[in-house]
C-alpha cells in the first residue's frame, strides 16, 4: 500500500492569476520511497510539495496519507499525521528564524509532540545534531543561525525535520542555494536517513544530475505547467525519456565535459521551443513540442502506462528520439 496517495489534485491560488497551478495531478509514493519532481520554473513543483506537507489545502482532489484523507483529519490524528510529514526548504538562510537559537528552533516541535520532556529535550536535541553531523554540544544549541554557515544551517533544518520522526520528507531544492562543495554531503545525509530509518522523500529539483544521484532506485515525475507529463523509474526515464518535454529538459542540461558537449550539440536544438506559454487546449505541451501533430492540438493525451511503472502523457511517446550523449557514450 502506498504511503501517500495524491488523487486528481487541482490547485488554484486565491491570490494568483486564477489559472490553476496544478491540474488533476495523480501521484503516489510508498514507504521509504523517493519520488523526484522535476520541471521548469513555475511548473508547480513547490506547490505540490506544499500540498503534500499540508501547508495548503488543494482546491479539489484528495491527498491521503496512510490511507486516510488528510483534509478530514482532526485532533489527535491530525497531530499524528502532522508529525509524519515534514519539509526541508530550499533557502537555508530563510528557513531558520534569525531571532531564535538553534535550541529554541528545535525544541518546540519535540515538546509539542511529546517526543521528549523539558528535562530530556536537550539531550534529545544533541542527539539530533549528532545525527546530522553537527558539532553536538550544548553550546551549539545556544548559537544563532547567523553564526552558522549555509551548510550548517541546512543541517539544522534537516535536524528539525527528522526530530519528529517523520515517514515522509518533502525536500524542495535543498541543495540549490548551497555551494557546490557542500551539496553532495547534504544529499548523502538525507540518503542516510532513507537507508537507516526508511524515511521517504518527495525530492524537488530541476537539476537532473542531482536527481539521478539522489533518487537512485526511485522514481521521477516530470511536471509541465501543472501537469505531470511523464513519470517513471529514474534510470529508465533519464536514459530513455518517453515524453518530448523530458527529452528537451535532459538535452538542455549542461555537461561538465567539453567533449560530450560538442557531441551533444550536434543533435541540434530549437531555441524557440524552449520557452513559451503552455497551450490552452489539447496537449499543454503542444506549443513547444517538436513532434506536434494536429491531434495534439485537439485532444489532450492522458497519462498512460507505457512500461512497468512508466507513464507518459504524449500521443507520440514512441517517437521520442533517444538521447545520444546520455545513452551511448558510457563506454
Amino acid at each position: 500500500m502506498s504511503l501517500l496517495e495524491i488523487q486528481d489534485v487541482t490547485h488554484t491560488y486565491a491570490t494568483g492569476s486564477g489559472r490553476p497551478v496544478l491540474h488533476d495531478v495523480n501521484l503516489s509514493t510508498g514507504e521509504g520511497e523517493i519520488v523526484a519532481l522535476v520541471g521548469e520554473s513555475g511548473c508547480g513543483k513547490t506547490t505540490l510539495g506544499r500540498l503534500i506537507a499540508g501547508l495548503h489545502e488543494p482546491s479539489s482532489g484528495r491527498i491521503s496519507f496512510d490511507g486516510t484523507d488528510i483534509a478530514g483529519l482532526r485532533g489527535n490524528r491530525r497531530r499524528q499525521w502532522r508529525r509524519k510529514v515534514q519539509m526541508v526548504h530550499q533557502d537555508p538562510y530563510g528557513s531558520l528564524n534569525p531571532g531564535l537559537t538553534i535550541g529554541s528552533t528545535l525544541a518546540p516541535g519535540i515538546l509539542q509532540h511529546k517526543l521528549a520532556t523539558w528535562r530530556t529535550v536537550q539531550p534529545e536535541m544533541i542527539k539530533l545534531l549528532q545525527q546530522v553531523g553537527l558539532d553536538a554540544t550544548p553550546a551549539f544549541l545556544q548559537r544563532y543561525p547567523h553564526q552558522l554557515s549555509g551548510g550548517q544551517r541546512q543541517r539544522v533544518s534537516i535536524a528539525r525535520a527528522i526530530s519528529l520522526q517523520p515517514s515522509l520528507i518533502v525536500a524542495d531544492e535543498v541543495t540549490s542555494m548551497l555551494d557546490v562543495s557542500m551539496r553532495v554531503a547534504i544529499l548523502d545525509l538525507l540518503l542516510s536517513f532513507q537507508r537507516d530509518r526508511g524515511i521517504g522523500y518527495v525530492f524537488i529539483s530541476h537539476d537532473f544530475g542531482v536527481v539521478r544521484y539522489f533518487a537512485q532506485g526511485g522514481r521521477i515525475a516530470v511536471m509541465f505547467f501543472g501537469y505531470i507529463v511523464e513519470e517513471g523509474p529514474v534510470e529508465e526515464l533519464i536514459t530513455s525519456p518517453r515524453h518530448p518535454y523530458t527529452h528537451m529538459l535532459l538535452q538542455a542540461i549542461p555537461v561538465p565535459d567539453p567533449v560530450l558537449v560538442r557531441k551533444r550539440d550536434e543533435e541540434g536544438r530549437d531555441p524557440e521551443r524552449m520557452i513559451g506559454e503552455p497551450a490552452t487546449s489539447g496537449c499543454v505541451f503542444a506549443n513547444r513540442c517538436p513532434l506536434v501533430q494536429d491531434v495534439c492540438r485537439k485532444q489532450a493525451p492522458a497519462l498512460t502506462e507505457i512500461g512497468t511503472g512508466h507513464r507518459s502523457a504524449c500521443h507520440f511517446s514512441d517517437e521520442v528520439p533517444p538521447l545520444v550523449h546520455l545513452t551511448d557514450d558510457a563506454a
Partner: protein
Amino acid sequence: MSSPVTNDDQHLLEVDDLTVAFGDGPGSVRAVENVSLSVGAGEIYALVGESGCGKSTLAYSLLQIVPPPGQITGGTVRFRGASTTTMSKRELNALRGAELAMVFQGAMNAFNPVLTIGTQVDHILQAHPEVFADPKDGRDYFRHLLDLVQLPADRIWKSYESQLSGGMKQRVAIAVALLLRPSVVILDEPTTALDVLNQRLVIDILKDLHRTLGVTIIFVTHDLAVVAELATRVAVMYAGRLVESGTVEEIFKAGRRHPYVEALINAIPSVLDAGLRVRPIGGAVPNLAELPGGCRFAPRCARAEDLCHETEPPLLGDDHGHLVACHVVNRRPELVEVSKA
C-alpha cells in the same frame, strides 16, 4: 578614444597583480589578492569559484566599479594596453558600455524599475553618440539583438522591468550589454538563478553571439558544467586567489591539475552517471577575514603536506600558459585521468 590603444589581440584585457580590499585597517578583507589574468580577443573566458571567493569583485574591478567601501589597492587593469586604473572619469565613461560592457549578477535588479526598457536603451544611446550617430540606428540594432536573444522586440521596448520574467530579464540585460557593440562583455553568473531550459537558452545565445558578433566574453560562474559548455579559457579562484587557469580542455582533462579543481569536479553529481564517483569536499571555504597560513586550500586538501600549511604556493605555468598554484602538483606533475569510471 583618447587613450593609447594597441591592437594586440592576445592582450585585449590584462589584469596585473590586482588586489581589491574592502575597508581598511585591521577589519579589512582582501576579496581579490594578487590576481593576474590576460584575456585575448575572441575568447570566452570563465571565472570559476565557490561563493565569496572574489569572482564578482574581480569582474567589477575590470570596469572600475567596485562598490564602496571596496577599492583597488594594488595592481593594474589594462584594456587594449591603456590602464583603466588611472583613467579619468570621462575616459572611463566613454569606455564603459561602449568597449567594456557588463551584465550584473542577478540581472533582476539591473534595470531602473520606473523607466521602460526602451527609455533606458535611449539613455545609453545618448550617452554614447559616437557609436550610433543616428539613435534610430541604435534602436534598430537593439531590436536586432532582441531577436537574437529570442525576445519580442516591440513588447520589450515598452516594458518595465517588473513585467519581465527572470529568464527574460537576463536576456534583455545581455542584449543591452551588447547594444554598443563592445569588444568585451562581462557577465556575472548569467545562468545561476535560471532553470534548465532558460539556462540552456542563455548558453546557446551566448555561443551564438560570440560566433556572430565576435565579441569577447568574460563570464563568472560557479557551475563547472556551464564552463565546459561555454568557455574557451578558464580561471579558477579560491578565497581571493587565482589557483588555476588554462584552456577549458586543460582544466577538464589535463594531467596537472589543482587539487581544488579536481575536488570540485568530483563533487558534482552529473546526469551522465548515477554518481558513483561523486565525493564531497570536506570543510568549508575559509572566511576571508581569518585566512589560514600557507595555501588557502590546505585545510580541505586531501593531498596537503606540511609545506602547504606554511607557505603560499606560487602560480606556475607550463609553456601553454596553463597555470597552477599548488606545491604538490607543481612538484610532481602526474597524470590523473579524469573520466567516467
